């Protein structure tokens, strides 16, 4: 059996989903962080986004997806990017910043102006829907 590796470019993957986070998902699960996934990465992605994955594992990868600048924290800029992508830029800038402010108020436990992984996991615990929405059916 050979060790042939198939690489999916993110253009190929884009055809399958109209997901606003598709590029981030591809970047997070790819080995080199630029969106090109090998078969192993692809399997990892489906394993994490399947029904059986535990909540903490999903929260960990969701955190990495929402952390656009890869600095280990979800700062205000990351939040603005998330909200803009989620609403396809149809909210005004003022509304976006209001929403980000409210999110930080609610979720930031140690009041350092950004969300750490623990803050994020704590917030996910309050959202029982997370398991059913962060899920791709195959």
């Amino acid at each position, binding site marked *: 059996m050979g060790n042939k590796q198939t690489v999916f470019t993110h253009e190929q993957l884009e055809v399958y989903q109209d997901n606003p986070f598709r590029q981030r998902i591809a970047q997070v699960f790819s080995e080199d962080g630029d969106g090109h996934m090998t078969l192993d990465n692809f*399997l990892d992605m489906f394993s994490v986004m399947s029904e*059986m994955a535990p909540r903490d594992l999903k929260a960990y990868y969701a955190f990495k997806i929402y952390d656009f600048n890869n600095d280990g924290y979800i700062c205000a800029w990351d939040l603005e990017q998330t909200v803009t992508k989620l609403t396809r830029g149809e909210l005004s800038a003022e*509304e976006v910043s209001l929403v980000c402010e409210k999110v930080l108020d609610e979720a930031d436990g*140690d009041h350092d102006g950004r969300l750490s992984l623990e803050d994020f996991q704590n917030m996910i615990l309050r959202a029982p829907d997370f*398991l059913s*929405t962060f*899920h791709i*059916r195959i």
Partner: protein
Amino acid sequence: MAQPLNFVLHVPETPEDHGQEPSPYDESDVHDSFHQLIQEQSRWVAEEGLELQERERGAGAPQTTGSGSRIPPGPEDAGAPSTATLRILASMPSRTIGRSRGAIISQYYNRTVQLRRRVSRPELRGVGRSARPSLRLYDLELDPAALEEEEKRLLLVKELQGLTVAQRDHMLRGMPLGLAEKRCLREESRTPRGKRRGRPGRRGLLPCCGRLRDACVLALHGLGLALLSGLLALVPWRYALKRIGGRFGSSALSYFLFLKTLLVFNALLLPLLLAFLVGAQAAFPPPASPGSAPSFTGLELLTGGGSFNYTVLYYGYYSNSSLTRPCALPPGGPCGREAESLPYNMPLAYLFTVGVAFFITCITLVYSMSRSFGESYRVGSASGVHAVTVFCSWDHKVTQRRASRLQCDNIRTHLKELLAERQRRQGPRSACGRLRHVAVLGLVWLLCLGTTVGCTMAVYAFSELMIKSPVSADQEGALLALPVVVCLLNLGAPYLFRCLAALERQDSPVLEVYLAICRNLIFKMAILGILCYHWLGRRVGTLKDQCWENFVGQELYRLTVLDFIFVLLDTLFGELVWRLISEKKLKRREKPEFDIAGNVLELIYGQTLTWLGVLFCPLLPAVQIIKLLLIFYVKKTSLMANCQAPRRPWLASHMSTVFVSLLCFPSFLGAAVFLCYAVWQVKPSSTCGPFRTLDTMYEAGKVWVRRLEAAGPRVSWLPWVHRYLVENTFPIYLVSALLLAVIYLNIQVVKGQRRVICLLKEQISNEGEDKVFLINRLHSVYERKERSRAGRSQETERLVDHPDAW
């Protein structure tokens, strides 16, 4: 030239560096950077104190020396942090968790060790100089003898080997590593057992069979994989559910998942009844009753009467003693007394089977309710609705372009609504407005309850009318009148309630949905309640010499079948015709929304009917299964063709919990109460059924216990149990009191947990402030170092340039 200074500089200890209490770590275990930093800082303070002393000498003013201990915290000089600060920050434990595999492995090593050693605390002797032995033993991350990643991995594998298989799988599943690595870890942590098994095996078999053995193993492996994929394909409706989730999201999917759950409940119920009741009686039918049974006409499928009366479908068919072998000779022959009776007591079997079926259903319901409750309810969770909307509301299941665009719109609308709500809530409603709101609320509730009471009285009056005008055997179609009236009321009431609720103008859409569910549920339960009274209270009296149980069974069968027909009609008119009208006449592009709450309540109502009817019509679960299967396909087709996803963002998992709780509490509980009343209090009819000679159905059990008592001392514990635990009421009081005590204790525990959560939140906030303070101090220290280094290099340059300055 600098004069030699020869005074002793006293550098007081800074409180934040060396506290009075012993530090949590030993001196040598403190993080290297911080330790060096503290030493450098002390030295620098000494130098600064000297410099100050130097300069001030000229001025002659007295000087506070060495008071550099109070380094002013400098958040004001927050420029870009220096590279040294960044390096330190980058190696903070909380940062490295997401970054390197080594950190992940260390973290999971710690967790595995804690899991393994959860029961035993570490010994205090022989632990070393550390003040916190637990940390000394367990912590791999803060261990200054930083191990290589490979060594950490080996340690992790060793720890994993000490866990049980289930714990190991659970731990591996939660690790944020790649699949390939997890597979390697699993293989390695399995190896000792494999090695032990492999070696003797290898020695035992002949080497020439090696290839054959490999081929067999590969073939078996392939067969296993094929079986697994076949099993997965057998899971019903996988593709259909995927399409529904892809086009309509999780909320519409929750309805179909609930339907699947109901199918499972009925599928649990049916085999018991089939095996012990229907099958047994069908295999050994009772002697044919005098008179001929009517032939089959199509009407029986609707009314359930006619020729169905003399089949296993109803209670009346079952014999009231032990089963007998069927007679080969024609009736009236010398069969009677010599017929062998089998040791299968039908009345007892009937009572026990129905009881056990309900018991199993109860346990399953309570288990699934507690599991979904556990997932969706968290102690001390305050509302974080904005955060939850931003992070958890995008449904990754949705794959169709149009549907995901719709989802986008919904989320945007929801966010706008939330923002608007905040702004609106900032201006509290005036007293007049609040009073008016309460008045409107009260009025709407009054109207809804009034409608319920009115419909209940209407059903009661109609049922009394049906009693007064008895129906002859050839007019069985007229029996359909009462079920039709009930179904029409059930169809019309939700629309009426929806119109009334539009008057209310609630702020919160979720509250609107809950109120609608509440009102519809009260209505349906009231109607069912009056019907139960009609059957057990009135019909028993009026059908004294006939088989009232058969009649009740038939009524329930009719209700079930007509409910199905009306669901079809509702789907047809509510969805298809409405869509055609709105598209052609009103020229609106919007399709009607899929009404989740209404449809789910219909399912719950149908299931209640089944549970009510199990005692009198043991095959009713089979009818319900066929009905649910057909409803699935009808609703799916209608959904795909006519509807769009609901606009209101649904908390799908909360709603699943609510659905299962509603299934348990009014629905199953009501059916259980009905069953208990029928078994304990109502006199069975004397002409048919397995309990025809007894006063109550429960007496069959008592009779059996008495027979056991008479049988001898070998089974005397059963009559004893019956007399002192079942018939005596004291144990029931005791058990209830114990249950109440346990519930009270649990409530107190939850209260305590809430308080602990508040305290922990405060602590996290304080730690965050501490962290910010320390980072700022670090930053200012390095900044000053840079400045002083720059200053010193300038000085040396100056000296180099002008050597004659001194």
